[in-house]
């Protein structure tokens, strides 16, 4: 069953946490809500879970309207950021808690608990208390607990952010594997773009209570629709267009050619800026000729191992820095060198 969210509004006093949010989540897909803290992603998840009541809008699962169903009857599995295992219960009792609430009979419950513990590879930890387990183990038990009652969807609220880097990566792979195996619709909230890119089928980028863009990881990276998304997913140089240049793209007095994209997002009427990834910016000799060439000065050079980051100031617009990333052992210019850059037309993105 698809989860469909329509025109959701949630206010906390004067703050609008969700500003008319609409969204479709297809059965069996893995969706990430991505955004900086305070963008409303956690609130959206909590409204879906039923832990917060929306001030307007609707949530439907298949044909049924969830709005009037309390959290405990929604049958969603939720995994919280950290420490949500009941500290007074063993791992096995934690996993069985949802089944107890649903009054499963003993043998069936025991089977299910075992099945779930096997699923997260922690069968040997069944009788441990949460305080005797590592953070990563606790989160895996929390995942098993959420999955045990066979929920209609899995909701993960920053499940990995309290863990250290190595465990986080392991668990990332494991969650994705379990999700694929069970084919369960999953929504995960995260502020970590790398996590979202690595795990999700679909990413919902949010900012200030609104959805900025929805797309696959590849789409968001290659064709960001707004300056916010461009900057949030990876790094992107954002070049504000010169004012009063309707119908054409001019930056720093230079007209730039932009290759039209298949999806047609390059709409000159709403264009506010052009974006280009640092790895697409190419260095040229001063005075080089060709399409989309700008004269620049080298402002600073940082050597970062596999890449070298060069900050460039366009001669006609020194306040808007352009960053170029050079890979491997490319010749590195010195600070103060007068150069030019080429901005390939097919790498330029129109941002609204």
């Amino acid at each position, binding site marked *: *069953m698809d989860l469909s969210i329509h025109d959701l509004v949630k206010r906390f006093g004067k703050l609008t946490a969700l500003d008319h949010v609409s969204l479709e989540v297809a059965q069996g897909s893995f969706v990430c809500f991505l955004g900086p803290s305070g963008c409303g992603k956690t609130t959206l998840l909590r409204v879906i879970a039923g*832990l917060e009541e929306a001030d307007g809008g609707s949530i439907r*699962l298949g044909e*049924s309207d969830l709005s009037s*169903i*309390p959290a405990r*009857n929604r049958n969603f*599995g939720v995994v919280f950021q950290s420490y949500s295992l009941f500290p007074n219960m063993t791992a096995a009792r934690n996993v069985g808690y949802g089944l107890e609430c649903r009054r499963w009979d003993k043998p069936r419950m025991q089977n299910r608990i075992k099945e779930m513990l096997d699923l997260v590879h922690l069968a040997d930890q069944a009788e441990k208390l949460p305080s005797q387990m590592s953070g990563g183990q606790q989160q895996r038990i929390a995942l098993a607990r959420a999955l045990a009652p066979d929920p*209609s969807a899995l909701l993960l609220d920053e499940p990995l952010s309290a863990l250290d880097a190595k465990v986080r990566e392991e668990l990332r792979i494991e969650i994705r594997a379990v999700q694929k195996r069970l084919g369960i619709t999953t929504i995960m909230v995260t502020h970590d773009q790398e996590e979202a890119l690595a795990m999700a089928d679909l990413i919902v980028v949010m900012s200030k209570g609104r959805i900025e863009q929805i797309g696959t990881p590849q789409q968001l990276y290659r064709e960001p629709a707004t300056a916010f998304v461009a900057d949030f997913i990876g790094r992107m140089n954002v070049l504000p267009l010169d004012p009063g240049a309707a119908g054409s793209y001019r930056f720093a007095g230079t007209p730039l050619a932009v290759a039209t994209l298949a999806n047609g997002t390059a709409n000159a009427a709403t264009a506010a800026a052009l974006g280009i990834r640092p790895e697409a910016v190419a260095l040229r000799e001063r005075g080089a000729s060709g399409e989309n060439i700008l004269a620049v000065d080298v402002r600073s050079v940082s050597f970062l191992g596999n890449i070298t980051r060069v900050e460039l100031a366009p001669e006609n617009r020194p306040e808007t820095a352009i960053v170029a990333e050079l890979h491997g052992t490319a010749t590195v210019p010195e600070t103060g060198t007068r150069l030019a850059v080429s901005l390939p037309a097919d790498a330029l993105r129109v941002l609204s």
Partner: protein
Amino acid sequence: MSVSAAREPQRAGKAAGWASDRSITMGLSVLAAIPILLFLLLPLTGILLRGFETPSGFGIGNFTETFGAERFWRLVLNSISMSLTATLAAVGLAYFYAYALQRAAIPFKPFLRIAVLTPLFAPSLVQAQGLILLLGRNGVLNRFLGFDIDIYGFWGTAIANALYAFPYAYLILSAALAVADARIYESAETLGAGPARIFRDVTLPATRFGLAAAIFVVFTLVMTDFGNPMVIGGDFSVLATEVYNQVIGQAQFGLGAVIGIVLLVPAILAKLIEKRISSRQHALVTAQSKPLETKPSRGRDLAFSLYAYTVVSLILSVLVIVVVASFVRLWPYNMSFTLKHYEFDVQNGTAPLWNSVGVSLATAILGVAITGLTAIVVQKFKNPLTGPLSLLAILPAAVPGMVLGLGYVLTFNDPANPLNVLYGSFTLIVILSVYYNHAHAFLISSTSLKQIGPVFDEASTTLGGSTLTTLRKVTLPLLWPTLLGVGVFYFMRTMVSLSAVIFLVTPSTQLAAVSVLQLSDRGAVNQAAAFSVCIMAIVIGCLLIVRTILWLAGAKNVTLIR
């Protein structure tokens, strides 16, 4: 992998789910609100109304009569000057005692920490008892060492009350001095500040809120305490003893009520000011803070050791002398050892002691149920009742025990009140004890509930648990060590409480602390001492038992002595 067909919200009973949860939380809220209205708000209203009730109808006659009497103003002056003296002494001594324990390296800290709290285990007149045995007409100093000290009166009362209030001040100040950010001390030091300057510019400002709180708490405690001035005051009367004399001696309920209201004023003012001050206190310690570690310094450590051991000997000597007196034939004439005072062949024998144990146990059980419920309602539920309920729950902090006790008499001895049947019973004494100590017990429970946090509730809810399931399976199992601690607090306070219950005891509902007062009033010094010792022994025994239970259950970090 079992993929069942049940991947759909459980439609059955969804409306009932909302409704039953709402009605359960509302029902529990009402259940918590009714007794607090009946047994806290009603008696307080009762005392206010009674103050305005005169033979010629409703009016301010009682007030004009009381305020017109020269004797009243002398009592006010007595009360205030004695309370100020005792407060300054208790808070001043306790500050440096707490400082010594928190910020200096001195030997046997655990002993010093416990020893200084022992006055909490004894009825609030044991200090006066001990002082008389030490410094009274037949005391050690006058009798055997040839001094000629007259301890009865202002100084006796002030010293006894200072010793009585010392542990309360110490607990507050110790908590204030326990937290410190080492980085600030290190900065001060690297900037060239000496120890005295650091104390003045860093330590003192960081603890001024604790200091203010200690001053207000102690002042209220001493001002409204009645046991010590009763025993050692002699001709020196204060407002608290005057209420007793008016009500018990002359059955002047109206005048007693007026003085009760007068005593309520400083208590409420103190509470309000304390709240205002603490609300302005910002977090001095953050997650980045580094705990302060005491560096050894011989001179300072020696000075503070001397100081701490002197203070602790003063406090203990008063208690120890009472224990000694309970074992001698006839203080101070025949000092041979005997156990005859423990035969309790006086009055009701040992009955008051067992009555006290029974009442304290009942108070502990009822108190845990009531404050636990109230804390859960206030912290976990949200409905129109929870706001007013949280205010009422901490109101007793501003009500002196005597005033509440008087309110109970005025309200429940009225035959028109259907609850009059409770009057003269142990039940009413138990209820009074529950509400007298309600504020503190409530705060302990709700702090603990807050620490448990909402995430377990949310986890339980999303897994399909109802409010009651969550309470039963998650909240209560996590809360029980705290609730046991609340029970101990109730038991301890009720065992030693005197001023709250003094108006409610009758010959058939005698309590141990009251017996001590009556025995010492009759001059039966040794028996009174034996009774005090028994009370202390029972309280300490209870603490040891509960500590063992907690230790066996692996529950650490539960504070039992408050």
